[in-house]
């Protein structure tokens, strides 16, 4: 599903965000990208959905070389990927429904089908009763779940989650990880970036450890 070959990412002249990263994530895997803040986890995710280009190296995602992807093909790549952003990227002045509807509108899905999809996903994340609320009135955990629901709107083959348990207390974090586990169980490849090494150890999944932009360890 994802292959990186000698990927470097340098910001400015000498800020090395990623150094010689090689990795291979199979279709249907559940993988942690773990490491302290500033290790390059977010950068790595952004390279995968082509929000950034590597300074050098090649990246294959779902059979496409994203480094050589022409600009007009980027939307196509992104439609096959679901991304849960660290800051959620929810529109605060719109209802939960409108936030999710944005995706089906972009995809050009008929409204009737899209609305059903929104309802199903909100049921999955347990927020059916808050569909008309704005993110302002939701707790951090609830916002996180809206962000997850939105990332699933396009039935992605690959789900990227950036610190999905970041600000949550332990109990809510377990809930979110269980949800991601369920999504993985249905066949979606899931990549989770986190700084929470305890959680990574507890869950016993494959983990790729980054430190200072370098891949330092891999646990299987």
């Amino acid at each position: 599903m994802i292959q990186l070959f000698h990927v470097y990412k340098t910001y400015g002249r000498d800020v090395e965000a990623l150094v010689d990263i090689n990795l291979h994530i199979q279709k249907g895997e559940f993988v942690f990208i773990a490491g302290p803040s500033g290790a390059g986890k977010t950068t790595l995710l952004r390279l995968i959905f082509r929000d950034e280009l590597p300074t050098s190296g090649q990246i294959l995602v779902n059979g496409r070389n994203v480094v050589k992807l022409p600009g007009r093909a980027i939307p196509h790549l992104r439609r096959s990927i679901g991304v849960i952003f660290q800051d959620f990227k929810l529109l605060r002045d719109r209802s939960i429904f409108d936030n999710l509807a944005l995706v089906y509108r972009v995809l050009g899905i008929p409204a009737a089908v899209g609305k059903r999809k929104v309802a199903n996903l909100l049921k999955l994340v347990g927020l059916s009763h808050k569909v008309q609320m704005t993110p302002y009135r939701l707790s951090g955990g609830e916002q996180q779940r809206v962000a997850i629901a939105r990332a699933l709107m396009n039935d992605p083959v690959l789900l990227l989650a950036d610190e999905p348990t970041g600000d949550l207390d332990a109990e809510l974090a377990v809930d979110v990880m269980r949800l991601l586990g369920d999504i993985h169980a249905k066949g979606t490849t899931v990549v989770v970036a986190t700084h929470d090494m305890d959680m990574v150890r507890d869950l016993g999944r494959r983990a790729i450890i980054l430190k200072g932009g370098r891949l330092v360890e891999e646990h299987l």
Partner: protein
Amino acid sequence: MERLQYILQDALVNIRRSGWGGLASIGTIAFSFVIVGIFLIITGNLGALVSEWKEQFQVTVFLEDGITAEQLTLLKKRIQSERAVKAVTYTSKEEALQSFKRELKGKESLLEGLGENPIPASLQLRIYDAYQTPEALRQFTASLGRLEGVEDVLYGQEWVDRLTAAVRMLRLLGLSVGLALGMASLLIVSNTIRLAVYARAEEIEIMLLVGATKLHIRAPFLLEGMIQGGLGAALALLLLFGAYRATLWQLQLTPGQIFGMGVGSFLDPQWVGAMLVAGAGVGAFGSLISVGRFLRA
């Protein structure tokens, strides 16, 4: 199909949200187009007037009193062979006097002191449009003046020339003013759209991240600009038409009556269409500038 519907909805939401900025856009475009429209109406009518006059334009060749019938026939043939001449009509001394008397209406007594008929016979020449330029006429009339039996050549061309020049100047002025105002409209529209784009910056970012094409991002703003521009132009046309009817009413005239010719008309349908298209075009262009700049940033 769905996508088209979503784009249209987004455009309408944008317009609703644009508030005073949107109204300012529409107002500026309307103002510019009113000014341009006034020039178009004035120059259009003056142009029609000029061509009407050109149609009726005649060169009058006054003949020497002693001209013989033979000389006259020769002269007519000679003049008819000129390429500039459409038609030749002969007016005898007697006919000229009668028509002069008709024009004096009731003051014929003024002529009583005259023993002999003082009015010369003449030929009236209708001239093809192509030869109604000042230079061609000067040459042509000069050559006529040298012909045998010709006393004098008269043509009231100078003021027609002046009017033609004035219309040309007005058109040029209208074009420059229109261009300047068009640029101003473009700036205002692009500024309004820029505000709309920035108001939706977050949404656009998310849309791009979930796989929206740039066309999909652009389209609602493009539509918004076109609608604003089109509405501005339509408003201008309404105002112009209202002002036009009010003017006619003030002058107690029906359109056809002014100068007794086909003058005093409103803009031609094709100009109305062109103004609407131009309005939408200005809006679209202004929008493309703003969104393009945003997407590149």
